[in-house]
């Protein structure tokens, strides 16, 4: 009996030739990630272990992105812990403000998450790198500490759910819509403890940016990871950036899946997730009249070039609705520069949106656009839990950048067709 991608990647990082779902194993990791919220605890725990040095200074990434540029004194203290630890251990991939980006936009861009690798990060959206054919998964700070010391982590081998997307993409449908649609079908615990594999004609046709948004939200279905087998699109993307050698891994022809589910692109229109769970999805034509106070375009889900280009194509020559504010957050410094070169920043400013330096900011209710009681935001982010973007009495709706941009113009959740 063969192995799925997840099983095969895990096996290759142990001294076993075969692993099976349910096995508890210890695997080597290729990259360990932490941010300004999770790394401070990891650093404290690392010190408790009592080892002198980290396992490999080139395989740890520290990205202060959540509350940076520091929003207050306490956050500044947390960010300082990272900076000092990075200096003390000569960590190669510490990204200071000015060189940083939202971690899951940054690591793929820097070639620090690669096909066939195991990447663990003390951040739940580490699953983003599944789009590159890596087994990438979120862990806690203590896991991060142990991995920084040993270069290893414990795993329970997950069983795999395969999702096949056939047919053609409808207009304005992106990877974000495919994953929202999927979560709407299986629920926020529909893939609990499982590995998801995404494949089919629709996935083959997706750009790298769109695939990254898709795998980003695997966690919103409860999954350990959401993997797309590397193809030419993947290899074109990683080859020019890779900081290390890598070996792509593919599922065996006789791999065993817990379940295979097939979707047809014809059934999938742009999706909107209603409060307060990502599973509360509706097609854009079923949304009805929902007035909004704020639009956020950014985050590790949709803060990449393709997202900004889409938003700009809709905002161009239009103005943001008078009752609304729009916050656009490019994912990394490189994305800011590229958007500037392409004239996108001008389009946004002309439309009377604001453009922020890369930060998680409002995505987790940190800073840069917090909601008051009773306010409603439409965001291209990935979570719409109670209080996620501010007051517990505020609401967050999730969509792709095209719907967000169109809604910015109309002041209510709208399909792109309404403004074009």
């Amino acid at each position, binding site marked *: 009996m063969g192995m799925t991608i997840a099983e095969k990647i895990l096996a290759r990082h142990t001294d076993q030739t075969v692993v099976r779902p349910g096995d*508890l*194993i*210890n695997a080597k990791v290729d990259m360990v990630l932490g941010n300004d*919220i*999770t790394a*401070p*605890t990891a650093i*404290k*725990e690392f010190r*408790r*272990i*009592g*080892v002198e040095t980290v396992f490999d200074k080139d395989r740890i990434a520290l990205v202060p992105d*959540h*509350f940076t540029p520091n*929003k*207050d004194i*306490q*956050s500044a203290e*947390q960010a300082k812990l990272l900076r000092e630890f990075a200096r003390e251990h000569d960590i190669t991939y510490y990204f200071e403000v000015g060189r940083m980006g939202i971690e899951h936009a940054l690591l793929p861009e820097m070639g620090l998450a690669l096909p066939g690798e195991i990447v663990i*990060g*003390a*951040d*739940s959206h*580490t699953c983003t790198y599944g789009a590159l054919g890596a087994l990438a998964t*979120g*862990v*806690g*700070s*203590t*896991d991060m*500490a*142990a991995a920084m*010391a*040993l270069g*290893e982590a*414990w*795993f329970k081998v997950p069983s795999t759910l395969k999702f096949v997307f056939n047919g053609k993409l409808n207009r304005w449908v992106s990877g974000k819509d495919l994953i929202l649609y999927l979560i709407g079908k299986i629920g*926020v*615990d529909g893939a*609990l*403890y499982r590995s998801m594999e995404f494949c089919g004609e629709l996935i083959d046709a997706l750009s790298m940016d769109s695939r990254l948004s898709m795998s980003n939200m695997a*966690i919103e279905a*409860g999954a*350990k990871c959401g993997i797309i087998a590397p193809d030419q699109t993947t290899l074109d993307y990683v080859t020019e950036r890779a900081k290390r050698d890598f070996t792509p891994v593919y599922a065996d022809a006789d791999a065993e899946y817990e379940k295979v589910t097939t979707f047809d692109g014809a059934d999938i229109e742009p999706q909107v997730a209603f409060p307060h*769970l990502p599973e509360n999805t509706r097609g854009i034509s079923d949304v009805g009249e929902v007035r909004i106070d704020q639009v956020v375009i950014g985050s590790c889900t949709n803060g990449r070039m393709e997202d900004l280009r889409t938003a700009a194509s809709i905002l161009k020559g239009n103005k943001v609705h008078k009752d609304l504010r729009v916050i656009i957050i490019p994912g990394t410094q490189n994305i800011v520069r590229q958007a500037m070169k392409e004239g996108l920043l001008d389009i946004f400013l002309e439309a009377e949106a604001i453009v922020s330096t890369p930060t998680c900011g409002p995505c*987790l*209710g*940190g800073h840069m656009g917090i909601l008051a009681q009773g306010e409603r935001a439409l965001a291209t982010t990935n*979570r719409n*839990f*109670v*209080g*996620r973007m501010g007051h*517990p009495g505020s609401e967050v709706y999730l969509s792709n950048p095209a719907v967000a941009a169109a809604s910015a113009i109309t002041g209510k959740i709208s399909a792109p067709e309404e403004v074009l």
Partner: protein
Amino acid sequence: MQGHVWKFGTDVDTDAIIPARYLNTSDPVELAKHVMEDADPTFAQKVTEGDIIVARKNFGCGSSREHAPIAIKTAGVACVIAHSFARIFYRNAINIGLPILESPEAAEKIEEGHEVKVDLTTGTIFNLTTGETYQAAPFPPFMQTIMDKGGLIGYVQWRLQTESSTGPY
């Protein structure tokens, strides 16, 4: 262990357990002051040492913040019983030594205010209020060892000292 039960519903997320607005610190005592705040704003005042949380499916979904189980543990909660746990919360709880048990039956039948006794080694849950007993799967030996060492850090220290390997690590 034995304690008073506080009951929660389905999909209690980590933003409800410890909202991001309090994450500019990693001090456990500060975090515990806001535990479960967006699910029940009065919880931090009501909870006392040794209490037990019972919840329905997918407890702890959302972010990887270890601050969530840390806040629960530091607030004095002795154990969390749920229909199921989100996977990162599950591993974090084990890694920091917060006992958790999965039992759909217990999650269904135990109500707020019940008095419950838990035997972690066997996974047996006794409802002292109704007289019922529920069975949860006990931890696999490897996870039990982590718990016995007080969490993953204690386990890693022990492993490094003894160079013994009885399972993962």
